[in-house]
């Protein structure tokens, strides 16, 4: 470490303070300091704009300006080096102000300041600043990667649809125009092809829906869940043998309306879809916990084996053979994504042959959904 040279700029209107600082730094044990001194605000700012130093020390008093103003001006210029404020008198207010403004440290001159303390403060400030910059860079890179991933799912699935539609049309025209020239086997192949094309279309729509949850951001509004549930039940239009009961007076929540609608719509339509017999009951309700609501959607359907509990929440996972199901396995993945976006949890309990109950929580104070940024 001794070979490393640390370049320090001191902006201080008092020459005596410069001498003290110079002497302190000359005693440094871990690194060699090279000190430059200027005695006023403008000269300090001019030096900072050159970006030639590793750390800045500002005296709080600088004639008619002060160190806080210089700090703000330096940051505005895009200064990415640590800045330490020095002052003659300890003042809690100023301390808080300069730290909030972005200073790396605040040191009181005089008897409490020593060579060791100054050196330590400088080295720590440099290290902290470095890791702060590194972290900012990582966060920025992550944000870009995240955005690219969202765009990727969207663009890819979107662009896949055009050629798929072409295949669907051609298969259709083959049947129409040349159907009579094909034997049964040829006809069946074309039918299978159209079925697969449709399934692939559904899967692509699923990816689009799933990626839309994180990508598109709507306005949050006050949503009365009693009213929303009435609409959702209306849309689902369950067969008459299936009774849907809302057991509690549901709360009003502050969320994106389409998202919470997707949550209930998917859970309730799944309950209908997997009822397994023409009659059954779906119960919906909630409990109020300390700082979150816990909702449930319970059915009397076919149930899910415990070993499949995790699987049902994964995208494209279904528990029935693909040829026998119109389900793409996207619904519960979307529910999970939305609930977790709001900082809640989603889980289920189930007895095979008896029915399943899906639970999810919503914090009463929802965090801003930064995933959509």
């Amino acid at each position, binding site marked *: 470490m001794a070979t490393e040279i640390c370049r320090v700029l001191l902006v201080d209107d008092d020459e005596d303070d410069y001498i003290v600082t110079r002497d302190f730094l000359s005693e440094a044990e871990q690194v060699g300091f090279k000190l430059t001194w200027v005695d006023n605000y403008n000269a300090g700012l001019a030096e900072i704009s050159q970006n030639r130093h590793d750390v800045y020390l500002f005296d709080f008093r600088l004639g008619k300006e002060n160190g806080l103003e210089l700090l703000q001006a330096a940051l505005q210029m895009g200064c990415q080096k640590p800045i330490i404020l020095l002052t003659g008198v300890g003042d809690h207010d100023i301390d808080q102000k300069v730290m909030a403004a972005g200073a790396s440290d605040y040191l009181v001159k005089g008897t409490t300041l020593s060579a060791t303390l100054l050196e330590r403060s400088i080295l720590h400030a440099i290290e902290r600043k470095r890791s702060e910059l590194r972290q900012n860079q990582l966060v920025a890179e992550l944000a870009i990667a995240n955005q690219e991933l969202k765009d990727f799912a969207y663009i890819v699935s*979107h662009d896949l649809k*055009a050629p798929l*539609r072409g295949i*669907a*049309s051609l298969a*259709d*025209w083959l049947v129409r125009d040349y159907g009579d020239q094909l034997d049964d086997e040829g006809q069946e192949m074309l039918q299978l092809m159209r079925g697969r094309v449709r399934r692939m279309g559904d899967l692509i729509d699923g990816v*689009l829906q799933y990626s839309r949850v994180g990508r*598109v951001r709507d306005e949050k509004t006050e949503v009365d869940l009693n009213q929303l549930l009435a609409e959702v039940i209306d849309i689902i239009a369950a067969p008459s043998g299936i009774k849907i009961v809302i057991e509690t007076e549901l709360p009003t929540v502050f969320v994106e309306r389409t998202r919470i609608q997707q949550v209930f719509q998917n859970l309730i339509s799944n309950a209908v879809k997997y009822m397994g017999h023409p009659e059954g009951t779906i119960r919906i309700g909630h409990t109020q916990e300390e700082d979150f609501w816990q909702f449930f959607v319970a059915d009397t359907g076919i149930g899910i084996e415990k070993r499949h509990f995790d699987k049902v929440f994964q995208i494209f996972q279904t528990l029935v053979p693909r040829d026998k199901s119109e389900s793409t396995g996207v619904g519960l993945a979307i529910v999970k994504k939305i609930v977790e976006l709001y900082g809640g949890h989603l889980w289920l309990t189930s007895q095979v042959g008896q029915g399943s109950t899906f639970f999810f929580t919503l914090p009463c104070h929802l965090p801003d959904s930064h995933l959509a940024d």
Partner: protein
Amino acid sequence: MNSSDPILLVEDDRIDVLNVKRGLREIQAANPLHVVEDGEAALEFLRNPQNPKPALILLDLNMPRMNGLELLQVLKHDPGLQTIPVIILTTSQEDKDRRESFQLNAAGYMVKPLDYEDFVEILQAIYRYWCLSQSPS
């Protein structure tokens, strides 16, 4: 629009062009169909006095050179072309595309279905409507 009025299709996908041609034949729409591959070619067609003025434009959004939204933007500000009804025929289900299309005076927005039969139905509905609707001459 009557059955002798020309329709302009702006579409770069050959199979989609076939789709529209077949579909129009199937619903017995005898209107002459002119096909161009992108927005720039559409403008060249529309601004050439030798060509007939179409009574309806069917417009894809995603195309090379000049896309559908860019073409709408130009049409909206061209007094000679702004009254031609434009129906968007696209794969995009994005709300953003729908919003922008209508902000730019689109007369309709149809998402191309996967099924040819569904497509014929859509085409039939569009065609019937525009046969009833009276456009300015």
